[in-house]
């Protein structure tokens, strides 16, 4: 895993790379450092024009507060945002799912998994402070990860941002045992920066984030599908279809959920609808081919499978589409009467 050095934190670990690389690196190191330091301070300031449309001050005072027990900031913070998304859950109920006693803490992936288990979308925000402000202005508390120590000896912490004040330059959090922690914008962004700016909101399946991104939203919805929360995934896909009617992905998601739920006729219609929007979509072509094969419609299935493979060549989907084509080649032709 690489990380762009911020400020003076880039250590010099030079190994067996070519000499030219080494000397070039040394000669540019100072310049790069200067440039990056400038960048880092710039990144920590909120651009006033970008937040001009937002209220100057927001505080979600209704957000519940669960004082954490020793080290258990993960369950406490997650319970706080889940409550705000209408999930009746307490930190104690979440602890066995997200707390690792050996590490005295939780991992971000576990918080995401526990969110999905409760039919909520774990929507990860852009690594931009503005994204947090947008969600707060829309009335949603934001779960954030912070590094409250140093980059080289990190101490991870989860907290919930419940407010900001653009004039006073502060953020307000439910954090640990403190119900209302007011941090300077600068101080908060530093701890957030050191945790790679990780932030998420819990969305009800019919809900969109304040600044919805199709790919991010669909990924969060597809994660629900992947663990078998089909009804929640379906609602999320329907919401996405309304929001992005020109994208094939929400319709394709619906088709996959219908197929998984045994609604083959509905699934076929949806795959065809997805292909009407994006004829070369690999997944829609492949899955429609599979569905038609199961129905005995070999000729039509072969056409879709071939198109899927054509566009999947060189992508991670090549293997899956290739096996569909192979399977269709081996399939014994049945009478057309079977294809209904």
């Amino acid at each position, binding site marked *: *895993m*690489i*990380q*762009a*050095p911020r400020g003076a934190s*880039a*250590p*010099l*670990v*030079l*190994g067996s*790379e*070519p000499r*030219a*690389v080494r000397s*070039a*690196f040394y000669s*540019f190191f100072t*310049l*790069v450092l200067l*440039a*990056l330091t*400038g*960048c880092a301070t710039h990144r920590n300031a909120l651009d006033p024009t970008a937040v001009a449309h937002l209220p100057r001050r927001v505080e979600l005072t209704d957000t519940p507060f669960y004082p954490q027990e020793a080290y258990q900031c993960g369950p406490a913070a997650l319970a706080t945002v889940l409550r705000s998304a209408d999930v009746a859950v307490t930190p104690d109920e979440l602890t066995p799912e997200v707390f690792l006693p050996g590490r005295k803490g939780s991992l971000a992936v576990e918080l995401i998994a526990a969110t999905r288990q409760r039919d909520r979308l774990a929507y990860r925000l852009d690594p931009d402070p503005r994204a947090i402000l947008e969600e707060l202005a829309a009335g949603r508390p934001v779960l954030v990860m912070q590094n409250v120590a140093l*980059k*080289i000896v990190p101490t991870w912490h989860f907290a919930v941002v419940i407010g900001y004040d653009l004039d006073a330059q502060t953020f307000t959090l439910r954090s640990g045992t403190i119900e209302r922690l007011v941090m300077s914008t600068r101080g908060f962004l530093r701890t957030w920066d050191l945790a790679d700016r990780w932030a998420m909101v819990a969305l009800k399946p019919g809900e969109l984030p304040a600044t919805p991104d199709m*790919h991010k939203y*669909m*990924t969060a*919805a*597809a*994660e629900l*599908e*992947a663990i078998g929360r089909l009804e929640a995934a379906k609602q999320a896909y329907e919401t996405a279809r309304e929001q992005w009617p020109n994208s094939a*992905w929400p319709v*394709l*998601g619906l088709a*996959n959920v219908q*197929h998984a739920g045994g609604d083959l006729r509905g699934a076929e219609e949806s795959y065809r609808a997805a292909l009407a929007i994006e004829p070369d979509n*690999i*997944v829609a072509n*492949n*899955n429609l081919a*599979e569905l038609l094969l*199961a129905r005995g419609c070999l000729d039509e299935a072969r056409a879709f499978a071939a198109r899927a493979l054509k566009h999947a060549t060189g*992508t*991670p*989907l090549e293997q*899956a*589409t290739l*096996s*569909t084509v192979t*399977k269709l080649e*081996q399939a014994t032709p049945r009478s057309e009467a079977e294809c209904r």
Partner: protein
Amino acid sequence: MKRLLQKSIVYVLIASLVSLASPAVAQAQMIGTLTGLRAVERDANLAKVSAVLARAEVRDQMKALGVDATLVEARLAALTDAELSQLAQNIDSAPAGGVLAVIGVVFIVLLILEAVGVIDIFKKFP
């Protein structure tokens, strides 16, 4: 008689192995939405990095560093999804343009070389 018994056992075993294998072949190979989305994302990230690699000033810089750009390109394919997306993100946030243009190019080149494992300069402390 013993030979016949041995033979029949072998045939039964062969038959059972074959029948074990065949359902896997016939199994539906539906692609989940998440798998599809991730593949699309990987493609987009790969395209972004390749586009940067194709730029003349980046190639020149690599040449100056004695690194073969085609080799780097080949190594990109071996990156995991997470590594690739991190690299694309880092390129996005790298300083570029204006008076920083030259530094930006060098920085991006170093980022790419680091990602594919040619150099090892941005490693964090253990």
